[in-house]
């Protein structure tokens, strides 16, 4: 079975500014699976996604992460992206002066270069953009604007899923993608994620609430608490959490 694992996390520990946040995480993800990671604020959900993506602010102090057989932790953030990891940010960063078009062209061509493919022609690139924009109904006028600058909350999240659509990752991590979204935007964003779903790629949905899981159905639900996964179950676990809240964790 283990040959088929897309992501294999063993005993992952990480800290920031000397404070340990991840306290030994184990997680297996196979191709085609959707995993939800839930938990109260401060349990380490966002840290887990940041560490997987390679955020240099966090220091990995123990454990291993294999991504389709490769040692993920020794790859640079850009190579993790090329290898098929995608992080949708809870707070997408605004980059004044860098247009969406230039940003995406740089991203697409960097990946092609990594796989020794020639850069896309201007025409092919624009066609690709048009096709992918449709998935999340992203307005064309945003393409000429600076990355995320002046985007509404909903536009920022759609923009994340648009980038995911362009980069076609094998593993997508959606970090609190539902935060700050109204119900219509949530439907569009979740719809985009579902359209991109295949039998080969996998998704980690990090969320505080059950709400998003009505739209993106998880195969597994994990509860993260104090930097460890304390319980794993099926979709029904999310409903249980919704009902009982997180207070029961304190008795563990």
């Amino acid at each position, binding site marked *: 079975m283990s040959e088929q694992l897309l992501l294999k996390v063993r005993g992952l520990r990480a800290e920031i500014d000397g404070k340990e946040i991840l306290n030994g995480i184990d997680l297996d993800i196979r191709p085609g699976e959707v995993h939800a990671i839930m938990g109260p604020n401060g349990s380490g959900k966002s840290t887990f996604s940041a560490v997987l*993506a*390679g*955020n*240099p*602010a966090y220091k990995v102090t123990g454990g291993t992460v294999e991504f389709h057989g490769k040692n993920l932790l020794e790859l*640079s*953030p*850009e190579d*993790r*992206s*090329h290898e098929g990891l*995608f*992080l949708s*940010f809870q707070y*997408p*960063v*605004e*980059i*004044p*002066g*860098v247009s969406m078009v*230039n*940003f995406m062209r*740089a*991203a697409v061509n*960097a*990946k092609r270069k*990594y796989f020794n493919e020639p850069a896309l022609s201007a025409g092919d690139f624009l066609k690709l953009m048009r096709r992918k924009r449709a998935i999340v109904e992203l307005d064309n006028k945003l393409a000429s604007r*600076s990355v995320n600058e002046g985007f509404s909350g909903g536009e920022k999240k759609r923009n994340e899923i648009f*980038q995911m659509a362009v*980069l076609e990752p094998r593993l997508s991590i959606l970090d609190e993608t539902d935060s700050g979204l109204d119900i219509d935007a949530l439907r569009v964003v979740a719809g985009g994620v579902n359209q991109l779903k295949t039998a080969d790629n996998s998704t980690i949905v990090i969320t505080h609430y059950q709400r998003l899981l009505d739209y993106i159905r998880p195969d597994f639900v994990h509860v993260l608490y104090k930097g460890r996964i304390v319980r794993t179950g099926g979709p029904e676990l999310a409903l249980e959490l919704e009902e009982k809240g997180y207070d029961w964790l304190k008795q563990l």
Partner: protein
Amino acid sequence: MNNPLQQYIDLYTGNPDMVQGNHGGALNQARDKALERLLEARRLPDRSDEGYAKTSVAEMFAPDYGINLQRHPVTVDLASSFHCGVPNLSTLMAVVAVDRFAPTRTLQQNLPQGVVVCSLAEGVRRYPGIADRYYNSLASRRGNAATDLNTLFTQDGVMIYVPDGVRLEKAIQIVQLFQGDSPRLAFRRILLVAGKDSRVAVLKCDHSHPDSADFLSSEVIEVIASEGSEVQFYDLEESAAATRRMSQMFARQDAGSKLTVAAATLFNGTTRNEFRIDCTGDHTATRLSGMAIGSRSQHIDNSSEVVHRGQHGHSDQLFKYVLDDEARGAFEGSIEVAEGSRFVEAYQSNRNVLASTGARMHTKPQLLIYNDDVKCSHGATTGQLDDRALFYMQTRGIPLDEARRMLMQAFMVDVVDTIALEPLRDRLRHMVERRFASADHLCDASCRQAE
């Protein structure tokens, strides 16, 4: 170091005839006064002088450079050396080889009636009415010993005159070159007179060959923007590490005039740029901007002063620096609003990015306001590239180096946008991109641009 000024005074007083040559007119008339003032000043500004804390003019002039006093002809091979073309921008071009004016054929053929773009030495003879009235008129009043030294030795330069009501369609381009194996000091001078309600755009490009000898450019630019005129002056420097440049611009704005000045230092050795703009009339509009991109041991020092003496003046200053490696940047800028100059709006902003731990930036913004009815602001920030943006870009697969370049380039976008000529704006944007892509060598960005 003993007094570097003395060698120049000795040189002049020992060879006055040679300097004065047969240039006659306004150039020579200004020399006596300049000498008198230099003898009084006794020295060039150095770090002990206010406003020169980071750049010593005395030090720049200390080496014994060669000066072409006898006016030996200088040959320039423009085509093989530099490509200063701006796609989609047809210009009227002239070359200043070291300190000697050389028109291009297209320049002479395409100048509209009454417009003068010529050698300054020739201009003072042919157009004494303009030269006597304007030459050294601003520089003598607002300049210092560095200005007077230029006035003492200037033998040629560029004269530009646009008569009242003439609106030049094409931009005038002046390419200033240093070439050769021996050290050179060039005294350069530009006199730009824009008549009432006229319109003119000037693009000046300073180049020196990489791997060439030590060069020093002493430059004084005088700009007279008459009532209702629109003047644009763009100054682009791409010179070698062994080149030094002391450039002083003095501008006067009469009522209703609009002046746009943008200076970009892409490659250089040691550069000191001064901008002294006097808004004497009412309802003037001034846009002054500067961009400095420094790596290795580049030294870039900009000093600006916008003085409002009229009412309802509007001025906007924007200076931005990106410094890498061991580069040094300095900015000192002031806004002065004179007593009685009411309803003035004057702004100044200096923003800097230090891309390495070895780079240094010194900034000193100042406001001097002598009345109440004004809106003024100034601000200065110096920081690093945004780590969050860098990581975000990396997670999208953009390699760190490229992400850094993109952010540095993005930082300069608003300075590039102050350029009113669209083709030049596009060109500069491209040059900035190339500059960040090839931070190592002048030649990568400059010589190969035409490819």
